[in-house]
């Protein structure tokens, strides 16, 4: 017994010396999509928590003080930016008393700073245009081109915070890029026959993906961002459907389906419910499978 016990203790001691306990970098992200990208780049060197879930509309997350507790010990906060989280993140950051994650802080990374934006308003900007994002469209993580830029920015920042892992982060970034490139080949092949076609979406959430796919949005169920569709707008969209030959409407699963169903009743378009982010549905479990679900939905929407 004593012999076994002492052997075990020696084994444990050796194990402890051989692989010293390394504290994982505690990364907190605002959305599950960002969390998925951080996991790809960080691997087992990071512990990732998302403040919101893929089934939630990221504009309207509650500023629940319980989330401030998660931010208190964050080694890195990654947010999307472009005012996407302006309704809930700032008070949580202040409440957390973690000064390094304040905007511009050493442990704060805003993904929007790494990507060229689309939908920048030209001309005067005011709220008669609805709840617009004056700094550009923040729904850029669905874009295979831009997600690689975000991943690179995350890898670089992780390497600053955890210099011992710099080589690992570089390797994982390369692997993620290769994975995305391989997936892109398949997606482009699926979408090639449908270049130039258009769909209708609820909000401007698929602008970047449609741009990448060579497709367009013929119209939006919301007459202006954040404004609920009145029946008159749905009726005018019906005319757009006929003139542009739209066959499908894509609606995230956190939106009310009423207006999409009204349009379907008027014109016969298909209503396709899509996840809003990674984790929005069971099969959107990581970034590649999330975009895979979206690409399949796009293909379905134009047939």
């Amino acid at each position, binding site marked *: 017994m004593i012999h076994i016990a002492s052997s075990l203790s020696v084994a444990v001691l050796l194990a402890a010396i051989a692989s010293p306990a390394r504290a994982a970098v505690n990364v907190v992200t605002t959305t599950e999509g960002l969390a998925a990208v951080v996991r790809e780049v960080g691997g087992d060197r990071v512990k990732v928590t998302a403040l919101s879930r893929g089934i939630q509309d990221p504009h309207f997350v509650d500023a629940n003080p319980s989330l401030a507790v998660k931010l208190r010990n964050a080694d890195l906060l990654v947010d999307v930016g472009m005012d996407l989280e302006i309704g809930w993140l700032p008070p949580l950051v202040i409440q957390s008393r973690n000064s390094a994650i304040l905007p511009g802080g050493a442990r704060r990374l805003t993904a929007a700073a790494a990507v060229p934006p689309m939908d920048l308003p030209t001309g005067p900007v005011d709220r008669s245009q609805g709840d617009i994002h*004056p700094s550009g469209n923040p729904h850029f993580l669905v874009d295979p081109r831009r997600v690689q830029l975000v991943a690179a920015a995350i890898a670089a920042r992780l390497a600053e915070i955890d210099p011992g892992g710099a080589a690992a982060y570089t390797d994982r970034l390369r692997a993620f890029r290769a994975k995305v490139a391989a997936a892109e080949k398949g997606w482009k092949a699926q979408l090639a026959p449908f270049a130039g076609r258009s769909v209708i979406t609820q909000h401007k959430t698929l602008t970047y993906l449609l741009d990448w796919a060579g497709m367009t949005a013929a119209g939006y169920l919301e007459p202006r961002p954040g404004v609920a569709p009145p029946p008159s707008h749905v009726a005018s969209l019906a005319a757009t459907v006929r003139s542009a030959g739209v066959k499908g409407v894509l609606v995230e*699963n956190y939106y009310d389906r009423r207006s999409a169903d009204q349009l379907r009743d008027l014109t016969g378009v298909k209503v396709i419910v899509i996840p809003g982010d990674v984790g929005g549905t069971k099969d959107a479990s990581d970034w590649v499978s999330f975009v895979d679900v979206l690409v399949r939905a796009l293909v379905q929407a134009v047939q």
Partner: protein
Amino acid sequence: MVNVALLSLLAAQAVGPAAGPAAPAPGTPPAAQDAVKEAQPQPFPAGGYNVGSPGGIPIGKLMLMPEIAVVVDGALGYTTLSTEQQERVAGPLPQHKAWPVLQEVELAFQATVDPYIRGDVFLTFTPEGVEVEEAFLTTLSLPWGLAVKAGQIYSPFGRTSQLHRHQWTFADQPLSMQRLVGAEGLSGAGGDVSWLAPLPWFAELHVAYQATRPGFAEDVMQLTGVTRLIQYFELSDSATLGVGLSWALFQAEAPVQWKNLAGADLYVKFRDPSSRSSVVLQGEIYGRQLGDQAFSEARWGGYGQAVWRLDRNWEVGARYDNAPAPVAYEGGTQETWTALGTYYASEFFRLRLQPSLVLLPGGQSGFQGLLSFEFTIGAHAAHPF
């Protein structure tokens, strides 16, 4: 937010539709934290902006401006209660008249001062005059989970008494709060030290030292010590429970002064994460012991309310309130039943209809109705939890 918007507008003039991304090689320094791409030139449209002799981009100066917001609250009010029956109520209405009133204009200026503190200033303009509602600094980087707020501040007492008008769900504050705490809550110059406990749930302890004007003796300022423990527990993915305990101690002096004021508050929010709908149940109890009273003579009161946000546009609520009746009723209690219907045209504009049934001692009763609007211009405020 203004800064990034204007910078991006400027950049958009020359960048145009999505320019080819400059992919940073792995291991290169990360992209700049702000929207300025250091390696790229700052373009200006021909014949557009005046560059200005000091050089650099003129928008840069605007980046240092505070966030500014203005909130305007107006209402049409009707009451069958007399002035005596509306004793100690903020904004009493004339009896039997449909009375339009601009209730408040709040001007907010908020900015980071330096790496150590942020500044928040709120001015209110009401029919009673201009007032500094709050003006304080908040520390940004103290150790051990501490934060200090100093200046003119709302006391960390109770739940609803700390809210600015635009954060209220109902169009007025509960009568129990107005009569027992103060018609406009409890506030004054001083400091509030708070500590976020290193626990897996949210637990925050406040200790404040202020000079306040509590309810019954508004022309006399008193040294006040306030302490509050507020905790939030995640009951499930979609339900949160908040429990608070508060206590204020006033330096007792002649003639009618408060000595102790205690409060307990409860808050439960059920929110379906994949929609905008939610149900919030909230209640508070207040107990006040005046300087010349035994504890058994302390006055109690409180309220309970339920609010159902149906979707992005509609909200309904109900509130029951039990408060000390006006002095003329010699120690009786007054009950108020209130219903609420709110239409949110957008996040920045709401309309509320709020009827109330008031039951006074001796079988007397009254009716009150408020039809109010509220709009916000300027910086996007955080959605209240």
